[in-house]
């Protein structure tokens, strides 16, 4: 299926519209709440919770014997929350570290979920096919009621974030200070954790247990590189998340046999990679360029300081000197002289150079700075 065909379908095909809307909303929700998870240094908690949701889905299916997504969602939510609180319990009450607790809950809950799933698959009433979509996600199975649920939860999360924006910001940055100002940080903590778990759980159907955590982290990690404002970061993360969702769904819908989860995650990963390298303020590329510029500047400053020391000995500071004098000093080249001239720090006349007024001032400033630093 080509791009144009896809766009045509997008305007005509109801199912595709539903699915696209669903992943867009889901991506935005994940981006928003993921920003909080990342800033709270709970990046891997999402991974553990999404895996821990699996047995809940299986048990909900065993009890209700339907594939009603809302029933399965509640099962997933309960089991995800149990996992989240058990992790806290392990860290609090034993000497096991948080990474072990995360890994334990993740693998043990998932294993139990697998046991149940394989058990269900071999049950006689073969209504069970399709639970596998929760492993890697199949956005195409979203129906309009699922999308309504997503929209509702996304709206609710947005509302809660807006209402408690200032409190959440304070909690994330400085929890002790928040407490000293009289805010109930336990309430805020439970609130934000609950919404993160909820977000993970409703994403399972489209993105799957295995990759859900990346959906939470990647847009936030990418967004962080472009801004120094929490609000802009959350907004950007939501946009990145939406784009990953929509593009991922489009690609996976246009080729057979591709689960949505991995495609969405790869697209989000491209966002991350691009941001890591090309973000103007924090990106690796510009960091490297800045580093080289600084090095060059340092070199020029050294040359200038050397010239200053020579010029200082003359009454007339703009007195010309031969370039040869500089030979004692190793760090100059024609290019660096040229650069100094471009900045109007020196004048070069054939084989003679002289400091300008501006150059002398600059050099004496640099010199004083050096003195002060020592």
């Amino acid at each position: 299926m080509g791009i144009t065909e896809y766009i045509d379908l997008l305007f005509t095909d109801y199912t595709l519209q539903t699915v696209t809307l669903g992943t867009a909303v889901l991506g935005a929700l994940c981006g928003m709440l993921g920003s909080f998870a990342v800033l709270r240094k709970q990046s891997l908690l999402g991974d553990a919770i999404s895996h821990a949701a699996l047995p809940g889905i299986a048990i909900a299916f065993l009890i209700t014997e339907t594939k009603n997504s809302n029933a399965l969602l509640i099962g997933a939510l309960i089991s995800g929350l149990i996992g989240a609180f058990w992790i806290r319990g392990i860290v609090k009450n034993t000497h096991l570290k948080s990474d072990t607790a995360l890994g334990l809950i993740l693998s043990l809950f998932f294993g139990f979920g697998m046991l149940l799933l394989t058990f269900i698959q071999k049950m006689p009433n073969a209504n069970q096919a399709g639970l596998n979509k929760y492993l890697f996600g199949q956005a195409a199975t979203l129906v309009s009621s699922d999308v309504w649920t997503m929209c509702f939860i996304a709206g609710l999360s947005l509302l809660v974030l807006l209402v408690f924006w200032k409190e959440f910001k304070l909690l994330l940055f400085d929890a002790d200070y928040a407490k000293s100002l009289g805010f109930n940080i336990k309430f805020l903590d439970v609130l934000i954790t609950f919404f993160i778990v909820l977000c993970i759980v409703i994403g399972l159907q489209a993105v799957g247990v295995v990759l859900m955590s990346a959906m939470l982290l990647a847009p936030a990690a990418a967004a962080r590189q472009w801004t120094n404002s929490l609000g802009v970061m959350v907004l950007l993360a939501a946009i990145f998340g939406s784009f990953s969702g929509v593009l991922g769904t489009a690609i996976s819908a246009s080729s057979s046999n591709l689960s949505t989860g991995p495609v969405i995650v790869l697209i989000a990963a491209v966002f991350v990679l691009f941001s890591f390298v090309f973000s103007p303020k924090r990106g690796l590329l510009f960091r490297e360029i800045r580093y080289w510029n600084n090095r060059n500047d340092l070199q020029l400053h050294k040359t200038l300081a050397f010239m200053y020391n020579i010029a200082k000995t003359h009454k007339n500071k703009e007195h010309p000197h031969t370039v040869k004098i500089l030979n004692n000093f190793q760090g100059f080249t024609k290019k660096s002289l040229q650069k100094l001239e471009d900045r109007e720090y020196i004048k070069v006349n054939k084989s003679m150079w002289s400091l300008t007024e501006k150059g002398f001032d600059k050099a004496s400033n640099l010199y004083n700075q050096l003195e002060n630093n020592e």
Partner: protein
Amino acid sequence: MEKKYAITVDDLTVAYNYKPVLWDIDLAIPEGVLMAIVGPNGAGKSTLIKSILGIIKPIAGSVKIFGKPYKKQHQEVAYVPQKGSVDWDFPTTALDVVMMGTYGSLGWIKRPGQKEKKAALEALEKVGMLSFKSRQISQLSGGQQQRIFLARALVQNASIYLMDEPFQGVDATTEKAIINILKELRKAGKTLIVVHHDLQTVPEYFDWVTFLNVKKIATGPVKDIFNDGNLTKTYGINYKVSVQE
């Protein structure tokens, strides 16, 4: 009339993991003093501040701010935490951090407006950081970060200031600027309690001092009690070495 106390601490005992870090502390801090809390590492100085602020729950004893529990009085108290206690890579600006000082008086849900912004800008100016207001906080030097924290506390417009090592890792200029602001605040009748490490500057900076080492060793005016006897009791025999440093 009986002397008015800004903070009264009564039989306060605090334990971490059931190991006491503060033992049966009684403390009455008069209004309007500029007080240093001194003591060796692990003496419970930060713990004392955090217990006064209700951040840590004590296992025994009580704290009163102007005669009432902290919960009812949190608007009277401003807190300057240790600089290392937060993530300075957090996506926010200097002005934004200072604005946080207004959140307490705003209460739940209400957003800061023009009035709060104006107060924050004034506080930034007072600490000499106005030109850095839009700077991302990770791009500030240690001294500048400490000034931002001080400005955040100033915005609270409180009567009591609790500061946890405000001079740690700051340059000499910042230290002078901070102490000047503290002295100004005291002149305005505020009460200031400062966890302090540098024993040599205690007589110069402070007028009141509390020696702490798990137990309270002594508390009172610097000129009366800041002496070798109390220092030895607090720091053990090694105190002279630490003064010479």
